């Protein structure tokens, strides 16, 4: 039987994975973090772990929806278990 504190903690957590064409973070499974943490924190961790030199022009998506890395998970209306699709935004030459 779980206590109220455990229940509150569970409700304040989110399980997150980041996928890129340079690899996934974590490599397997999900990272448990607070829903109040900014999304950028795990994106930076992924960048470092996967040795991605620059993510300046990258975009983060969940279920095809672009999210704001400078906001928290809860501010992005995210909860439960999510996979963040992270990669370079399109360029385009415009001939």
């Amino acid at each position, binding site marked *: 039987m779980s206590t109220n504190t455990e229940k509150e903690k569970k409700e304040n957590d989110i399980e997150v*994975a980041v*996928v*890129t*064409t*340079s*690899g*996934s973070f974590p490599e397997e499974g999900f990272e448990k973090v607070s829903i109040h943490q900014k999304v950028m924190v795990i994106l930076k961790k992924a960048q470092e772990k996967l040795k*991605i*030199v*620059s993510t300046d*022009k*990258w*975009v983060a998506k969940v279920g*095809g929806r672009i999210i704001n890395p400078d906001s928290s998970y809860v501010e992005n209306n995210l909860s439960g278990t999510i*996979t963040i*699709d992270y*990669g*370079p*935004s*399109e*360029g*385009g*030459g*415009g*001939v």
Partner: protein
Amino acid sequence: MNSILSKEIFENQTKHIKGRLLEARQWRVNEMSHPILDVTFLSSTRRPLRIKMKCDRYDELPASIEILSEDGSFLMKPPTGTNVINVGAHSVTGRPFICSPGSFEYHTHSGHTNDLWENYKNKSDYDLGGMLTQIHNAWSKTTDVP
């Protein structure tokens, strides 16, 4: 270019195109063996798009990128709404093309011959996975729905 080296670069740049990345992006790999990277983008809200990257002399030269329909035929009327997919005829191939740095067709187009591949080579945004991602992100904004 040394084909062994080209194969090594190809395999290094495609080794993570698998598993939950494919699930998250709804990508189907049709072929991923040097020199071909052939992937179909799937979605419940738009027509599938198949991208075939030919990497015979990669990365001395950028990948040549073909825009195909799901069955593998050339798509002469590709989806619109993004300037990454140029629906006009390429000055060499005569077909619609990926008009973005990192594609062979961009760098050989008469309007971009001064923008050299060397400016982009070795940058992760423009490696094989990066290019596929850019095209996928562009496709997800197209207005060509079923």
